[in-house]
């Protein structure tokens, strides 16, 4: 009798584990997705703020002055061989090139939050375009 009870208890526990496991492994709610999207979009918005800011460089020249809606940055082509620099570079290297040249400022740390935000904005404006790394 007690053996039966213990078998039933084990079964229930096992089922419980399976159910919990299913929930943990591959189910998330719309609310989760919404939150993640919001987190992402807040960084895109931060990137847009930086994009139009006259204070990113030293001379008041903002990224958006030459690149409205981040156009003509073609992030989908990076990394690529940047012939003027003679090596393959990432989009963030070009962002720093612009900061140092037309904007006459200091480069951002490549792993800085600002750099991630700018990349988030630039790629968001180019969403839906096929990746073409290396293309000129």
């Amino acid at each position, binding site marked *: 009798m007690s053996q039966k009870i213990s078998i039933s208890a084990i079964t229930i526990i096992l089922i419980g584990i399976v159910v919990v496991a299913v929930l943990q492994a591959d189910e998330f709610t719309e609310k989760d997705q919404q939150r993640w999207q919001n987190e992402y979009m807040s960084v895109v918005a931060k990137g847009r703020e930086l994009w139009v800011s006259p204070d990113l460089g030293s*001379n*008041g*020249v903002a990224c958006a002055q030459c690149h*409205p*809606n981040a156009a003509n940055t073609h992030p989908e*082509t990076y990394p690529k061989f940047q012939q*003027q620099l003679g090596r393959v570079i990432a989009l963030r290297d070009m962002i720093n090139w612009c900061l140092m040249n*037309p904007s006459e400022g200091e480069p951002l740390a490549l792993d800085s939050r600002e750099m991630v935000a700018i990349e988030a904005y630039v790629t968001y404006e180019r*969403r839906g375009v096929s990746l073409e790394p290396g293309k000129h």
Partner: protein
Amino acid sequence: MKNQKRRDFLKTAGLLTAASCLPLNLVELAFADDSKNFTFAYISDAHIQQIKGNKFVRNWDRGLSRAVAETNLLNPKPDFVVFGGDLAQLGKKAELDHGADILAKLDYKTYQVMGEHDYYLDLGEYWSEIFGKQYYSFNHKGVHFIVLNSILTFDEWTFNRWGTAEQRMNEMAGLDNPNGSPFMVGEKQRQWLKKDLEKVSKKTPVVVFSHSPIQKIYKGWNFWTDDAEEVQRLLKPFDDVTVVYGHVHQIQYNQIGNISFNAVMATAWPWPYPKSYSQNKAYVPKLTVPMNRANPFHERDATGWQLIDINSGRVDLRYSLTNNSNRTVAYNPLTGQPEDKDFQEKTKQVPPQEHY
């Protein structure tokens, strides 16, 4: 006769090329009667930008200074120079003064066109103080020239929406700013234009200078004039009409009915074509073969000047580009539209013309 004109023209172009290539636009007006031929230069979109005090953004200063120096070297001399608007970046007195100082070195009479960057701080007050009327017309050797202030907008936006003049200027200065407002010539100026044109024979070539295109290209960046159709209607009765506009910082050309449209380059920086913004359906006039962007690392890449030649009252433009192959966009009387002399055919275009 025609060949002779072409030779003369090429000679002029050769001299210009020898004088090197700078962000200004020389216009030649060639008539059947050679004595009526003349040229003028077109410089536009300098965007002189104050950092603080007497410090200005070097890159934009150099673009304009170079254009001015080059224009002074032209031989034969142009009859006059047009500056196509956006002399300043944020409409400040210091910027307009500094820009006017650079332009004052020109050896020629200069006509001014109002740009939105000159206007929205004090609604053109200081600009008018130094340059005069915001819209006007004049006749020169048989051509009727009209200068419009095409960058006006709704009164509500101009007068009631913004807390400060600086904020209003900043909102309009951002090309891609959704808080901006569409440009327009406006009822008052259209009435003036109608009256002005009443005195002009329909056979007289008419050339209009405006800052924004008097056609609708892409509203999101104000490559746009809201009452373009109304203005075009006033110009419709004339045999030969050309609109030369700035603002877009790129090669554009188009033909709508009797009106040819030609955009001029900026001395400051080039702008992407609207189609390169993938989130919007945006169009460039189908005719336009995009400008080349071979090397954005070069400060003067995709900036340049035009030599404009009017054949039988039509304007042809020769873009002389500092860091890119020169282009010629000429009115083709056979097809009745402006076309690129070298690159119009798809097969003749070179890879960067895809503007990647």
